[in-house]
């Protein structure tokens, strides 16, 4: 019997290629392509008064220089229009998006103004250095509070710097808070960080003049949508554009945005020049011209009863979305809804304003608004616990949605326009596991022991619920080749999540094929045209389900054809190790079994044989009924299938983290002693991969809590735009993660799975803040927190009478 691979720690089929240097990332392609560099704005807010390129024109190796005027001059395309607003919303009344090259005005440091094409990047940068741009510098709007004050405007025609105000509510929250026996008000803030994948963005475009077609490689999280967008911008028929996502060196959200200016400019230049053109983003460009996330200010009012149960929760927050808003309101919508976590809030009201600032755009970064929401809700829980003198875990437990209340509709509209309705989960069981894992109930003994040694320790916890696997759909295509190997493709992309392995595990089980005989392709529009993308922890749910459904379809066809050949009933057949056989019959007995490759041959009636195997399918070889057509009406040649999975709503994963910290009484250094995770992502396909996702998420959560922030000066200069100054954690800063799983299957998809990609990062700031507060007895209201900030908080506390 074949071992079931679903649920097994199957080693990744991606790895042999990647560890030997045989990966193919964007900049590993197109060595002979022309290369691009950009003149980017050194000012956060300015009018461009003149662009003088004359100093660059004599540089040997220069090929072309383009400004916005060149885009306008090309009337056959849409290149001079603003880039699309990808996700419109009725409340997004003042949506503004950038131009591919700046049109008379720049709104953040790093905005592209001039595109230079040269024989290589060195020469292109030589030319960039010789191009002079004159500016009228305007006042810069930096930071949420400054944007809200609106003394200056980012866009002249956007009053108050407000792109959107959105309100959602269930019940009368303010009245409920007013009437509650206890209430609290909290001001909370969280700073900017960024996805910061090790590989930046990059685009390679090849124009085939003979075929009038474009082949584009881009380091994206959505190749199908880039294809549509580039075709629209360049005014090309969509079928003349193919987009391939090569190996991608991490995404974490930033590469779901599209089309980036470079994603339309590079193919546009390739077509004009009739040569391959490539742009590889450098690290500084990634800091100042891609995207950030997280920055929000929150004001919370909460009312609760004597037991700490929520009666009313009223939240107002201000979200900094940067200079433009191409990705719409997804991040603040997620914050405003996922803030609720595993709790019943009583009456709830949330209002947010999404504000322009003269800084890099804000679009989803792993967690996508949830870390902020989780931080807010969990600070509220800790504040209630402290106010009433109740254990922090107990307050949480009292507010949990109970398993018998599932499915539970929070009465709000989620980021996909669908109900915020939790499909499953057992929050009390998860909390029990976490308490055991971290030793919650024994912590006081540890604290006393540490205190006796002159050490200061604290414990914190945080819970979250994460809507994963948002629609609208994904699809899968599976074909069995005549050699018995199986090719699988799905349209969404991969950035290191092991999709090839995970999808092959599913197909191996469903089709009864050895794992090694399965090849999986993702993110190649030549192979699969319809897809959405890789974001929102959606691949296992969406493409996993689609591929499983497709495999079942192909299995059915396989059994039907094999049944004819073996003169058996399909119900009596099984597929084991790539052999279709009569159940219970000895393996490889010729009259009771047939291999998948032969079934594939038989599925395709042939006139011409091209090898020995295919002779079986030619017209004089088969005993087909001559009164019937070789292909039955409604059927198709080939052993292949395509299917799509499109759910009515997201599936909601959840988890809880507990962290033990030690703070140095002298230096204020914050050290994580233990980091424990209980995680419920439904049925697990590959625990090794899920745990890897959690490890990586936790590392980013630790970074966001203790180290990472975007240091913007008041004039809009990003002061730490390098890996030297933006403090991403090294191995010495990341704790060993202890994990326990709970598997509450989702009822919404055929595999019972929920997403796992983002979860690890979500409660990091919340749990660490809770632990530091516990260690120090100092109220923490903003994250991240550095040793010097903790030191200042200590001083403030000492100076408070």
């Amino acid at each position, binding site marked *: 019997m074949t071992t079931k691979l679903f649920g097994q720690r199957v*080693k*990744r089929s*991606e*790895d*042999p290629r*990647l*560890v*030997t*240097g*045989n*990966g*193919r*990332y964007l*900049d*590993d392609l197109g*060595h002979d392509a022309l290369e691009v560099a950009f003149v980017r704005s050194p000012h956060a807010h300015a009018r461009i008064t003149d662009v003088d390129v004359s100093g660059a024109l*004599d*540089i*040997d*190796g220069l090929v072309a220089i383009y400004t916005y005027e060149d885009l306008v001059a090309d009337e056959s395309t849409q290149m001079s229009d603003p880039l699309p607003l990808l996700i419109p919303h009725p409340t997004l009344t003042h949506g503004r998006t950038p131009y591919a090259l700046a049109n008379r005005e720049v709104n953040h440091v790093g905005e592209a103004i001039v595109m230079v094409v040269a024989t*290589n990047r*060195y*020469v292109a940068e030589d030319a960039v250095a010789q191009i002079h741009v004159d500016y009228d510098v305007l006042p810069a709007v930096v930071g949420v509070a400054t944007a809200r004050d609106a003394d200056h405007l980012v866009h002249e025609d956007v009053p108050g710097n407000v792109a959107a105000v959105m309100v959602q509510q269930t019940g009368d929250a303010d009245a409920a808070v007013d009437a509650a026996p206890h209430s609290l008000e909290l001001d909370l803030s969280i700073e900017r960080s960024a996805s*910061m*994948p*090790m*590989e930046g963005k990059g685009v390679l475009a090849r124009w085939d003049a003979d075929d009038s077609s474009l082949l584009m490689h881009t380091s994206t999280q959505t190749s199908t949508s880039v294809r549509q967008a580039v075709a629209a911008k360049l005014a090309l028929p969509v079928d003349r554009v193919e987009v391939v996502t090569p*190996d*991608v*060196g*991490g995404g*974490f959200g930033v590469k779901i945005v599209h089309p980036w200016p470079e994603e339309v400019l590079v193919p546009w230049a390739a077509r004009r020049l009739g040569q391959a053109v490539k742009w590889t983003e*450098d*690290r500084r460009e990634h800091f100042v011209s891609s995207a950030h996330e997280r920055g929000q200010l929150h004001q919370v009012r909460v009312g609760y009863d004597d037991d700490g149960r929520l009666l009313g929760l009223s939240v107002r927050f201000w979200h900094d979305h940067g200079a433009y808003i191409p990705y719409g309101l997804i991040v603040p919508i997620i914050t405003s809804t996922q803030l609720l976590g595993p709790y019943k809030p009583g009456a709830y009201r949330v209002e947010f304003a999404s504000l322009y600032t003269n800084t890099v755009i804000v679009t989803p970064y792993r967690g996508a608004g949830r870390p902020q929401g989780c931080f807010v809700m969990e600070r509220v829980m800790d504040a209630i616990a402290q106010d009433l003198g109740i254990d922090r875990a107990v307050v949480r437990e009292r507010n949990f949605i109970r398993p018998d209340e599932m499915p539970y509709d929070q009465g709000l509209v989620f980021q996909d326009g669908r109900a915020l309705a939790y499909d499953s989960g057992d929050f009390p069981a998860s909390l029990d596991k976490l308490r055991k894992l971290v030793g919650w109930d024994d912590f006081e003994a540890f604290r006393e022991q540490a205190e006796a040694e002159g050490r200061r320790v604290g414990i914190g916890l945080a819970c979250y619920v994460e809507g994963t696997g948002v629609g609208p759909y994904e699809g899968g295509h599976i074909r069995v080749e005549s050699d018995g190997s199986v090719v699988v493709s799905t349209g969404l992309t991969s*950035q*290191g*999540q*092991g999709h090839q392995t995970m999808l092959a595990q599913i197909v191996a089980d469903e089709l009864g094929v050895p794992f090694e005989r399965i090849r999986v392709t993702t993110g190649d529009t030549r192979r699969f045209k319809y897809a959405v993308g890789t974001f929102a922890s959606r691949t296992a749910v969406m493409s996993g389900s689609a591929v499983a459904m497709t495999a079942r379809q192909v299995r059915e066809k396989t059994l039907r054809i094999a049944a004819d050949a073996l003169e058996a009933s399909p119900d009596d057949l099984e597929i084991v190790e790539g052999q279709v056989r009569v159940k219970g019959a000895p393996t490889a007995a010729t009259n009771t079994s047939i291999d998948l490759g032969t079934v594939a041959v038989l599925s395709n009636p042939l006139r011409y044989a091209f090898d020995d195997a295919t002779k079986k399918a030619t017209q004089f070889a088969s005993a087909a009924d001559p009164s019937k057509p070789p292909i039955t009406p409604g059927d198709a040649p080939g052993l292949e299938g395509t299917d799509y999975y499109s759910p009515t709503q997201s599936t909601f994963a959840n988890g809880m983290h507990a962290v033990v910290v030690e703070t140095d009484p002298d230096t204020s250094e914050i050290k994580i002693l233990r980091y424990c995770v209980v995680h419920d992502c439904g049925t697990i396909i590959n625990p*090794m*991969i899920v*745990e*890897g996702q959690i*490890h*990586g*998420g*936790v*590392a*980013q959560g630790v970074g966001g809590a203790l180290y990472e922030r975007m240091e913007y000066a008041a004039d809009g200069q990003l002061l730490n735009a*390098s*890996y*030297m100054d933006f403090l*991403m954690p*090294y*191995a*010495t800063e*990341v704790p*060993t*993660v202890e994990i326990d799983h709970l598997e509450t299957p989702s009822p919404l998809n055929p595999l019972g799975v929920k997403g796992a990609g983002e979860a*690890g990062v979500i409660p990091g700031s919340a749990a660490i803040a809770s632990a530091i507060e516990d260690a120090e007895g100092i109220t923490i209201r903003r994250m991240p927190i550095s040793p010097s900030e903790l030191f200042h908080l200590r001083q403030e506390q000492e100076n408070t009478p």
Partner: protein
Amino acid sequence: MNPVEQTVSVTFTVNGTLQVLDTPPRRLLSDALRHDLRFTGTHVGCEHGVCGACTVLVDGAPTRSCLVFAVSLEGARITTVEGCCAADGGMGPVQQAFQDTHALQCGFCTPGFITTITAFLDENPAPDADEAREAIAGNLCRCTGYQNIVAAVQRAAQLRRPVVEERAQRASRNPGEEP
């Protein structure tokens, strides 16, 4: 027209093969390896020596190839991640260890870790967990949280042991042979 960029000739070995390169003096080793010699396993993550993705071994020592001019390496012996493979072209011990322990996700930083760990294990063939973590503390990874990379260092040490022992035995049989 500005003058055409001058080039300089430089000779070094990459993974045991002699390479003669005519290149502008300002060309970085990372670009020369990747784009001129097509050893694209060496990746560039930050362009200023902080992330370690571009780490190669120069005469056995881990070196940030984004901080070195190719022309400065006359006569050097360079090893890239492609040179860390087994003799048959399959995965070498450090590479195999990365697969065994799920020490990579996107794989972009991985070559820099593999070269770094290869050199480290030459110095310390049996590290404990703390030493393993310290050994990789100069390289950035944004995917894995490092936990499995620490495990990979120790797994690689285990996988290399027979190779190291065999090499030692061969050296004792043929005292003249370079270890």
